[in-house]
């Protein structure tokens, strides 16, 4: 396909038969993407609703669970994702303004940042695995499978030191929390971790799909498919990527920052 300067009145090679003009095609496609993002809002919305209800019900456990995840990594990841959104916006802009080389570099930048995000996420997941915080299997701990030193066992009431941390924090605040009580709270952090993994997992799944889309866009961009006449796929890819970014903007305070001031890193 050529990047020749076709005007909208002529038949652009990317114009699908059911549309009358490129303008109508871009309009319809962008609108379609937004309608799709509506469904995404509702899908994450279901999780957010459930999260909210349990956060109210098990607030101390949510505090304990939130405190046990690393706010530094979460903070870093937020910056990474915002950065990737910026490069993505630049990629769309450079396609709109027919800057072929720049759009390729911006796409590559976005993909690198997206991969960094997933890498950090993977590291955080591994830490949770290492600390025996993965919920499931009837509230037993899955995690390190071998009951060697430091392994996770089903009878571990401390739930990977969460119970201990609760008591330490309480001590710092000059409060008294019995081991019993701390163990109960620790047990309830399973719900928090269920949400943590479900929400960040669904988000990461969207990131992976996004990286797939970006790869496809990159291939098309290197072939010079996009210019000021036709950049709809780039625009749609951008919308998707920014949406995933927005979800994280909410996930970060909701999961990482519950009552941080009570102590913890």
């Amino acid at each position, binding site marked *: 396909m050529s990047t020749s300067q076709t005007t909208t009145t002529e038949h652009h090679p990317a114009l699908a038969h059911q549309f009358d003009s490129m303008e109508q095609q871009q309009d319809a496609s962008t609108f379609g993407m937004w*309608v799709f993002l509506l469904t995404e809002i509702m899908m994450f919305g279901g999780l957010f609703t459930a999260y909210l209800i349990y956060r109210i019900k098990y607030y101390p456990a949510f505090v304990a669970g939130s405190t046990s995840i690393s706010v530094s990594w979460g903070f870093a990841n937020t910056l990474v994702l915002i950065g990737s959104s910026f490069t993505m916006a630049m990629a769309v802009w450079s396609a709109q303004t027919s800057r072929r080389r720049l759009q390729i570099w911006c796409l590559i930048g976005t993909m690198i940042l997206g991969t960094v995000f997933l890498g950090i996420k993977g590291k955080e997941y591994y830490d949770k695995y290492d600390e025996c915080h993965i919920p499931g299997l009837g*509230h037993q701990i899955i995690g390190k499978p071998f009951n060697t030193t430091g392994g996770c066992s089903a009878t571990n009431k401390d739930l990977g030191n969460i119970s201990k941390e609760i008591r330490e924090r309480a001590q710092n605040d000059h409060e008294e929390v019995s081991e019993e009580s701390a163990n109960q709270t620790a047990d309830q952090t399973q719900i928090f971790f269920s949400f943590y993994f479900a929400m960040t997992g669904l988000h990461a799944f969207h990131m992976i799909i996004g990286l797939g889309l970006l790869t496809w866009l990159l291939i098309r961009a290197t072939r010079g498919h996009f210019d000021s006449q036709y950049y709809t796929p780039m625009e749609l890819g951008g919308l998707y990527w920014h949406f995933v970014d927005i979800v994280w903007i909410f996930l970060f305070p909701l999961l990482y920052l519950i009552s941080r001031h009570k102590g913890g890193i």
Partner: protein
Amino acid sequence: MSTATTTPVPVMPARHFLNDNYGIRSWLLTKDHKRIAILYLLSITVFFFIGGIFAALIRLHLLTPNGELFSADTYNRLFTMHGVNMIFFFLIPSVPAVIGNFVLPIMVGTKDLAFPKINLLSWYLYIGGATFSVLAMVSGGVDTGWTFYAPLSSGYLRGHVILMAVGILIVGFSSIFTGLNFIVTVHRMRAPGMTWGRLPLFVWSNYAASLIMVLGTPVIAITLTLLALERGFHIGIFDPKLGGDPVLFQHMFWFYSHPAVYIMILPGMGVISEIVPCFSRKRIFGYAFVAFSSIAIAVFGFVVWAHHMFVAGISVYSALVFSLLSYAVAIPSAVKVFNWTATMYKGSVQMDTPMLYAMAFIGLFTIGGLTGLFLAALGLDIHIHDTYFVVAHFHYVMVGGMVTAYMGGLHFWWPKMTGRMYPEVPAKLAALITFIGFNLTFFPQFILGYMGMPRRYWAYPPEFQVLNVLSTAGASILSVGFILPLFYFLWSLKYGEIAGNNPWKATGLEWETTSPPPTHNFHEIPIVTKDPYAYGEEEEEVPVVH
């Protein structure tokens, strides 16, 4: 449009979407919305009859009070799979994905839906979801009830819940993409002159249903995902043993599944709004009210879900709010019924098969809708909730309403889809048999329900037997009414009269193109200058046919 009192013998167009090209590839890789509609028609018919067989077995089993035909386990699987098949694989795609897919783009005057590839993808998603569902069925089935209530489904039963949940998740995306396509097409693809006020009511109601598909379906997707995760990995979100709340599952489930009822009925209402004016030769009474009542139903439909949960242990105050809002959604439905009836007033009514179905729809939907008032009344719902009263009510709406409308629509647009007429006499007979059989099947269930017979019962106290026998007798009649069309529709493909472009002398763009339409629907994109249902403007003497 030219009309002649002595119509020349219609001929089939030389080229149309069915003979444009041949071969399995031309169907499986088609991006033509009409062919995709045919693909949907074939697949949902299969699921309709699978679901129907389950229904027949259920009714057969309930002939005797002591559960003599099947074991309790088998019976539970039967009603679960009847529900899942009929709701997710037949009712939800029925009118939108078959009739809507076929006529909606032609009605708004475009060559195709906005995203033909996504349209094809949605059919493949349907088949993908159906595959999982069939896999779950043949490997032993699911016995959770179509409602999948936790913690029963997440921790207690042995059936293939995860397979079925995945199937429903996938088929959900099929319905999301259909809805998305409709919304964008209606907004962005209308022919010149096709203003919102000129849209056929079928388009309005499918648009409203599409809103629900897009906004509601993702919630069931995430809910069933969480359920499957809980079942597979025992994360504790719904199971109280793990710290979860089973009522939350019901909230999230009904957030979709109540509006889903309107996904099922709204397109059916659209069909009726097409048929009634056509066979009364009259403009629809109160066009704007019928159109906006569809949107009102779609919006209000989202704020009434907890009326399925009045006895589930929700807060008293919340129950009051949901009950009040439930009545709000009843009003637009009533408005529609009155408008359809008024449309017939001083018309020139001809009772061809589609009109018979439409009249049956209005009557049965009225009963179905009014019995909904019983269930929304808090103090009364306590008694009739989860009894056969509910079963009768939603079958009056779903079968008496939606399936009747679907059959009516299929007869109405059959000549457009195939270019040939179905035979009128057996069709009228089938409509009559369906009507009688349906009422005999489901009316006794209202009485059973108020007597207190709970739903999903494998065995029941003997005093309920007479009514159950009546119901089963009705079901056997009903099944004839559903099987008959299968034969005469197939027969008509070869031997049916050639229909011509507009056998009903109906208005609407779909009747201005050939039957069957050409691949790109129109040889020239029409310019719309008239209001919809402009009956009686030019023709004065419509010949009395049949």
